[in-house]
């Protein structure tokens, strides 16, 4: 019975934490957040040099050869740092090719994604909250025509993994004929989104895409859950810190029971919930029968916890919490992203109920 991290996993998290503290402290997060482009190539280069571009891709393809749990542990730390960049979409693109691609596709693309030479992303959403593989309607084939939205860093991506009708997956390269990518005004400026329009655009189907797409979605749910836990934990720390420093009525406001109880309630919602993403990642790697449902449960629960923690944190910070200058707003918007991307909590709760046979 060992429900804890290994020494190597602790070290992995420490390494990423150190990287984020050195290379992307809050002022840099704010600068990227406020910037026009949103993609800091130097920061991204540093991240892929640590092997974080393809954590769960085997080393024969240039990846770190670890598991989804390790990738999720990285996502937690990046979430806590609100680190801007294409980690999510890029990771999912790599996993889609690893699980759905031909040998040739794997050999062509995975090393380039792992090294960061190319940026990958996923094109899943079709509007009307259609995110799930079984809901995709864009017809597959040698060419694609239609629209996909909310591609993470779609405007910066060299390679798109596109979800097609029947739960298939297909590769489209940047600059392909008939492809028009347009940045969308996304709320989370640490994870820019774009819309992709395909007009008879040449595409290369992944031969095992139909088998892989649900698994890619589940991996995405786990990574979002991990990110949400990291963000929620950070918000708790920020709110507690503020309550220990801010003075009113001649005393530290954290001594007031009203605020103390709000913070205690936040801690009780956030901290015991870490194991939800750990277990979902563990099940994904080792307990296939529980994999899909654990991922849905973790995503639904933790992204809702993150969103509520963000709302509570604004209140706990008072007026300053409602300003653009306060970092709470950055986490608030990351919570909105985590909540909506790949489907809202209620969608995944209904899926979890169905997967239980209820």
């Amino acid at each position, binding site marked *: 019975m060992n429900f804890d991290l290994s020494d190597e996993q602790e070290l992995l998290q420490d390494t990423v934490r150190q990287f984020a503290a050195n290379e992307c402290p809050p002022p840099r997060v704010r600068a990227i957040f406020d910037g026009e482009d949103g993609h800091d190539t130097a920061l991204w280069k540093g991240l892929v040099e640590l092997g974080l571009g393809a954590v769960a891709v085997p080393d024969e393809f240039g990846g770190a050869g670890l598991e989804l749990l390790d990738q999720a542990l990285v996502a937690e730390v990046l979430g806590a740092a609100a680190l801007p960049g294409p980690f999510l979409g890029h990771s999912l693109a790599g996993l889609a090719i690893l699980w759905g691609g031909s040998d040739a596709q794997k050999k062509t693309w995975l090393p380039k994604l792992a090294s960061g030479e190319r940026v990958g992303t996923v094109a899943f959403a079709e509007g009307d909250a259609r995110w799930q593989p079984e809901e995709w309607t864009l017809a597959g084939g040698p060419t694609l025509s239609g629209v996909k939205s909310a591609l993470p860093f779609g405007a910066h991506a060299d390679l798109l993994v596109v979800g097609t009708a029947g739960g298939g997956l297909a590769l489209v390269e940047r600059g392909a004929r008939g492809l028009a990518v347009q940045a969308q005004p996304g709320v989370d400026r640490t994870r820019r989104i774009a819309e992709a329009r395909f007009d008879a655009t040449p595409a290369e189907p992944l031969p095992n895409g139909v088998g892989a797409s649900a698994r890619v979605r589940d991996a995405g749910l786990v990574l979002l859950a991990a990110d949400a836990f990291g963000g929620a934990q950070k918000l708790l720390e920020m709110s507690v810190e503020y309550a*220990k420093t801010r003075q009113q009525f001649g*005393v530290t406001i954290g001594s007031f029971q009203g605020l103390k109880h709000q913070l*205690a309630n936040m801690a009780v919602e956030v901290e*015991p919930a870490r*194991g939800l993403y*750990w277990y979902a990642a563990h099940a994904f790697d080792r307990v296939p029968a529980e994999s899909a449902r654990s991922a849905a449960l973790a995503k639904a629960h933790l992204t809702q916890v993150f969103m509520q923690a963000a709302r509570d944190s604004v209140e706990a910070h008072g007026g300053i919490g409602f300003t653009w200058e306060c970092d709470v707003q950055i986490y608030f918007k990351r919570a909105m992203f985590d909540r909506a991307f790949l489907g809202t909590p209620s969608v995944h709760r209904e899926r979890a109920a169905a997967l239980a046979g209820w």
Partner: protein
Amino acid sequence: MDLSYSAEYEAFRGELKAFLAGSWPLRGDEAKLAGDKRAALFRERAIAAGFLARSIPKRYGGSEQPADVLKAQIIREEFARARAPGEMAGIGPSMLVPTLLEKGSEWQKEKFIAPTVRGDIVWCQGYSEPGSGSDLASLQTRAELVGDEWVINGQKIWTSGAHRADYMFCLCRTEPAAQKHGGISYLLLSMKQPGIEVRPLRQMTGAADFNEVFFTDARTPKDWIVGKRGEGWIVSRTTLKHERNMIGDAANALMTFNALVHLAKSALRNGKPAIQDPAIRQRLVQLEGTVRAHQYSGYRQLTKAAKGQDPGRVQLMNKLVSTNIGQEVAKLALDLLGDEGLLEPGERQMGMGPRDAAQWVGQFMWSLGSAVAGGTANIQRNVIGERGLGLPRDAAVQRS
């Protein structure tokens, strides 16, 4: 990360299962004994085999095993599976025995521990008073040393099981001149004496599990004090250190949740099982998220404890999480019951097994008991805020 047990532990589980298969239920003439006699006989054998009373030395009636939280967990799992009687329940074995082991004198350990562990004597806890609830250290029940005896006057309240108890462990003010916490002593006393009057308190459920206890020149011998005079507050803070059940609360929460799912499947809405109702499904899965989080948090605390590491502040949250889950289960259950929610509450149902409608109504009320008993939910929030998050205490609160 690996949720299975190593070969060594699986071997231990094998021995345990063999013991249980041969020992429970009792057979032959022994099977005809009364229920509590059967349980007592079985416990005696389980202690001799090293499966119960593990943290208690042999000379005090225990089985004196090295502390091992994983073995303790396996024992709970297998005893539950075999539906065999586990450790004696009650405030005596759970609170008094660990306190005596740590702070009691030799004669106290010899006299009280073995019969308490066997269930031959039953204890109640004299802590709360009408004017001293959350602010327990303000208690006013006085004990004065007169010759060789303490003479006790005052009143305790919310005393669970006082009407059945043989003895009480009691906090009394013995040093009126000392400051608040320093004036309290921890006394043991017999409940079977003329100076004690027990009056039952009827609860909202209709049952009477707790009481008021009045002391009018009640007496107890001079040496029935645990620790020194004025050390009672510290003595009362002693908690169970060995093999503490890290996941007991979570296991109970999961069982209650499973019973709720069962209810949702059997209750009808518009002629269909309620579990097909989209709103009910949302609420069930939302609740399951909290229940699973609690379970995994327990696994992690268990792992930390097995490695000799501090599980951290998340331990302070267990009770409040359990309370929150209990309340949410109760509210959803009442919605599922529909017009059966008009019934009066039935007897309290613990642990596994489906509940009937009246028992769910009971649960709806009992779930509030957990938000009040043993430190209210708001006191838990203070503890989490102050000891867990390091927030300052309220300057206006008089603590000493």
